[in-house]
């Protein structure tokens, strides 16, 4: 479904990502693990084309992603960041944001369904300023799902949360991915979380893949 071929990015002579190749099948969860500064988030930004690769490319359903309009690509590969960055306003307004960019309006029923999927039934009219960290992150997941993505790119989605919120968000992600058979790439420094959520893992060190395979083998080798 998603295939990276020799993907790399060098900025001012500094290697952020180098020669990264991997494939994720439809419905599969792939964890990208590695120490801080190893290029995990840089790789995810390349997949979403928030940054431009300086070498290699990515194929989405056999199509070179450089041939796909960036806005369409980003809708198809929904991204959830470490911090939710909710827009000022209500939960409902945040959920409507993505579809509105394509001139579509979400029905009230769709909003209720999305909130139900992330365990926030009845939150539509709440102001995002009054949400807890865990609730805000779940709204962020729902906002990404409102775009009907084909894959989810999760960048340390629970690392800024306390333990109980972390478990809430993790359970929410697990349900959403399982119920929708979503392809998912999860960047995390939490090896236990990678083991719980993913089937396969890539270990990234200094921008390069140093190990790849079933998650337990990669993490416990």
């Amino acid at each position, binding site marked *: 479904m998603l295939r990276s071929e020799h993907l790399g990015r060098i900025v001012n002579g500094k290697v952020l990502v180098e020669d990264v190749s991997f494939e994720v099948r439809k419905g599969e969860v792939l964890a990208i693990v590695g120490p801080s500064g190893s290029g995990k988030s840089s790789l995810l930004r390349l997949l979403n084309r928030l940054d431009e690769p300086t070498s290699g490319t990515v194929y989405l359903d056999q199509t070179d992603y450089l041939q796909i309009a960036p806005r369409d690509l980003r809708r198809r590969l929904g991204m959830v*960041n470490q911090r939710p960055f909710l827009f000022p306003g209500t939960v409902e307004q945040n959920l409507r*944001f993505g579809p509105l960019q394509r001139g579509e309006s979400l029905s009230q029923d769709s909003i209720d369904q999305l909130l139900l999927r992330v365990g926030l039934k009845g939150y539509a009219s709440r102001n995002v300023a009054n949400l807890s960290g865990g609730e805000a992150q779940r709204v962020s997941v729902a906002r990404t799902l409102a775009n009907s993505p084909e894959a989810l790119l999760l960048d340390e989605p629970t690392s800024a949360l306390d333990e109980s919120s972390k478990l809430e968000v993790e359970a929410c992600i697990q349900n959403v991915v399982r119920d929708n058979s979503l392809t998912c790439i999860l960047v995390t420094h939490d090896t236990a979380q990678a083991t719980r959520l993913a089937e396969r893992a890539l270990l990234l060190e200094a921008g390069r893949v140093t190990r790849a395979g079933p998650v337990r083998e990669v993490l416990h080798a």
Partner: protein
Amino acid sequence: MLRLLFKDQLYLGLAQALMAALAAMLVVLLARRRNIHLESDALIAMIRGLVQIMAVGSILLVLLRGPRWTSGLLLAAMIVAAGATSARRAKDMPGAFRVSSCSIALGAGSVIAFMTWLGVIATDITSLVPIGSMLIANAMNTNGLALNRLRADVLAHVGEIETALALGAEAKISVSPYVQASFEASLIPAIDSLRSLGIVWIPGLMAGMLLSGARPVYAAIYQFVVLAMIFAASGLTSLVSTLLIRDRIFTPAQQLILQPGR
């Protein structure tokens, strides 16, 4: 007191400049006592400013006696200099000089041209150049404020902007709150000048017109005319520069170029 000592206007001017510079240096010394060292910067800036204004004054003296088309040349040179000055407020922003120069030329230039055509600004060099320079200088300040504010806001909201992009928003939509805020903030001085006209300050142009024998009512109305033109020139400049720079802080693939530490 100085007027009693110096009868020649040139010597009087130099003595007045010396006294004003001493007042400025006194502030520098006060700052020095609080471990704030401005000595060399302030001294160089003052000497540079004095030399520049005397040189420009001498050139103006020659040009002001020249044919009318020289005013166009002077105003064009001022626009380029204003573009370079306000572009410094937008460091790291791609194409800041070109954007600033074009915006000031379009903002201040079009207001000057239109108002001159209407007869609001007289076509003789002694009217067109001073009034034109006022519009250009204010447009320069507004442009600098707009770009500086936009740069700061974008750098402070990279996460929000990239979240909007990641949700499929167009680049211009993702920065629209910050473009709007920088435009509004840049016009605060121009609005406040209009609002406080005659109450907080009586600007130099009106004082000059009164001294040269103009009717007070006409001098007062014309001061309003100048401030309204400044507002128009500044507003148009800011509008154009924020829109032009907005497109330059993204790549063609709608990736944000302006990033902290890059």
